[in-house]
């Protein structure tokens, strides 16, 4: 992997210890993937949530922050999705743990380094996006697949340490989805039905993710019916990423690098594999749970937007969540505050629900929360969360928001 004069100087330590660590680390990853050189980046997003970082990750950040400022100069603008904890809710969810206190060191260290802690999860909703064709160093899986597929920016998964390295070097190894040829569709699908909810779209993503199951696969999808919304595509994309490590996709006639099949596929004309309603229904049937006692409804992943919270408030208005069921509604703090100004949070809380800010259910000790409360059956509209929470010992049922709310009121999984 070639290093230019500046990169070699970084490796030699001329640009400080942080850049020296970072360029050496990036070189080893770039070499692993046969990158020929680096590509400059302007924007970084670092995944730095407390659960995945662990104590060693926090210690690593603190070591970097403790360097003299001339040894740790940034070379890009960086945000981090450090989840500021909703202290009140977490006193209920995880009694005995001072998560805000446990997170304080990392927040301080990130701030000292010059990273903006945005306290949001899917940063495509809350942080300035890159432009079409721009290389960037994003960390969050949903954000990467969003940037590649929907925005047309160029990015590989640059996970926590990797995005921090890019922060200190202002570049990332040029491999994978920074290369034109790697962005072309490798697999073709078409829907013979019109998904009706974000859950349906999430399942389409899960089916494609399971089928391809490789980061290097790029699905192209032909849809029928109404144009999918950004939220529809977002659920599909993060589900593809979750079930199959997919980081790039096309929807013919919808996403920017796929005006038609030929462009999406580099001149080839593939025969698409059909995804049918039968496949959709089979996925729903995998999870079951109907009529079982319902422990928790977690509406999250991605954190909810204002129209979804309006919908929830309308469904709950004047009603009461069953005392045996916990209803959690996750949203970034900026949206929570906006919703409070128009009375939505109050309606949800009066009904017994909780509006939780600053983090995401699956990413903040969901296993420990389950164990603390003895929870088993959960419902969620996020097909990605179904995937993750099964691994944490939950028995999840995917369902749209109206069915989730109706079930929360009934205290059991309604059909």
């Amino acid at each position, binding site marked *: 992997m070639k290093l230019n004069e500046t990169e070699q100087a970084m490796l030699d330590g001329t640009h400080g210890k942080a850049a020296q660590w970072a360029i050496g*680390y990036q070189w*080893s*990853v770039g*070499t*692993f*993937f046969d990158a020929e050189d680096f590509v400059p980046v302007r924007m970084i997003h670092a*995944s730095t949530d407390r659960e*995945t*970082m*662990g*104590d*060693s*990750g926090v210690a*690593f950040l603190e070591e970097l922050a403790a360097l003299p400022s001339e040894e740790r100069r940034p070379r890009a603008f960086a945000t981090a999705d450090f989840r500021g904890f909703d202290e009140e809710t977490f006193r209920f969810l995880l009694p005995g743990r001072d998560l805000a206190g446990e997170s304080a060191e990392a927040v301080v260290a990130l701030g000292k380094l010059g990273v903006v802690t945005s306290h949001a999860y899917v940063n495509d909703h809350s942080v300035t996006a890159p432009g079409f064709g721009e290389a960037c160093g994003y*960390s*969050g*899986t*949903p954000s990467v697949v969003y940037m590649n597929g929907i925005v047309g920016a160029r990015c*590989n*998964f*640059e*996970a*926590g*340490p*990797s995005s921090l390295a890019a922060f200190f070097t202002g570049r990332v190894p040029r491999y*994978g989805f920074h290369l034109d040829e790697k962005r072309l569709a490798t697999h073709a699908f078409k829907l013979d039905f019109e998904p009706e909810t974000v859950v349906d779209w999430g399942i389409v993503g899960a089916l494609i993710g399971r089928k391809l*199951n*490789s*980061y*290097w696969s790029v699905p192209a999808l032909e849809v029928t019916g109404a144009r999918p919304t950004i939220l529809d595509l977002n659920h599909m994309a993060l589900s593809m*990423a*979750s*079930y*199959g*490590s997919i*980081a790039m996709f096309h929807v013919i006639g919808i996403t920017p690098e796929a005006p038609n099949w030929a462009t999406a596929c580099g001149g080839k004309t593939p025969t698409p594999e059909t995804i049918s309603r039968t496949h959709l229904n089979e996925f729903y049937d995998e999870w079951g749970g109907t009529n079982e006692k319902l422990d928790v409804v977690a509406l999250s992943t991605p954190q909810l937007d204002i129209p979804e919270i309006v919908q929830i408030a309308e469904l709950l208005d004047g009603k009461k969540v069953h005392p045996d069921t916990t209803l959690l509604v996750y949203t970034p703090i900026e949206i929570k505050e906006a919703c409070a100004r128009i009375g939505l949070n109050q309606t949800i809380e009066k009904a017994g629900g909780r509006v939780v800010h600053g983090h995401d259910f699956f990413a903040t000790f969901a*296993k420990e929360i389950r164990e603390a409360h003895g929870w088993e059956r959960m419902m969620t509209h996020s097909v990605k969360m179904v*995937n*993750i929470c*099964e*691994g*944490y*010992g939950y028995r999840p049922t995917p369902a749209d928001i109206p069915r989730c709310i109706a079930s929360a009121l009934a205290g059991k999984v309604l059909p």
Partner: protein
Amino acid sequence: MSEKIIKGHIGIGPTVEGIALAAADNFSTRYDLDRDRGIVSRPSHKLYGDNYVGRILVLNAAKGGVASAWMLREMVQKEKAPLGLLLNDANPVMAQGAAFAQLPLIDRFETDITAAIKSGDRIVVDPARGLVRILASA
């Protein structure tokens, strides 16, 4: 039995020798592992309930999101990590995590690595040369 050598792509991390724990399933540190107990915790995973600590995990493809990059190093420091990782296809996160943790990783083999190695095989993983040697079959 004579030693069998399997070639892969140049990998990451130091050379190690140990016992394999193999399945054709995919792999995510977040989705599949109880990292406190050191066991595979996803019920639908073929290695469900198996202790992976100190074993060389042999699996198909890396899946899921960014979590593994931080987690592998945390697992190494808490002595709840596999000894090495052999995958048919790694993704960037797994490579970034292995490099951060200095955990041996090789992928892109000349054959399906999950079929070539069985649980219980004693193997040597040599990332610098992209080679795996089977010393003894289970």
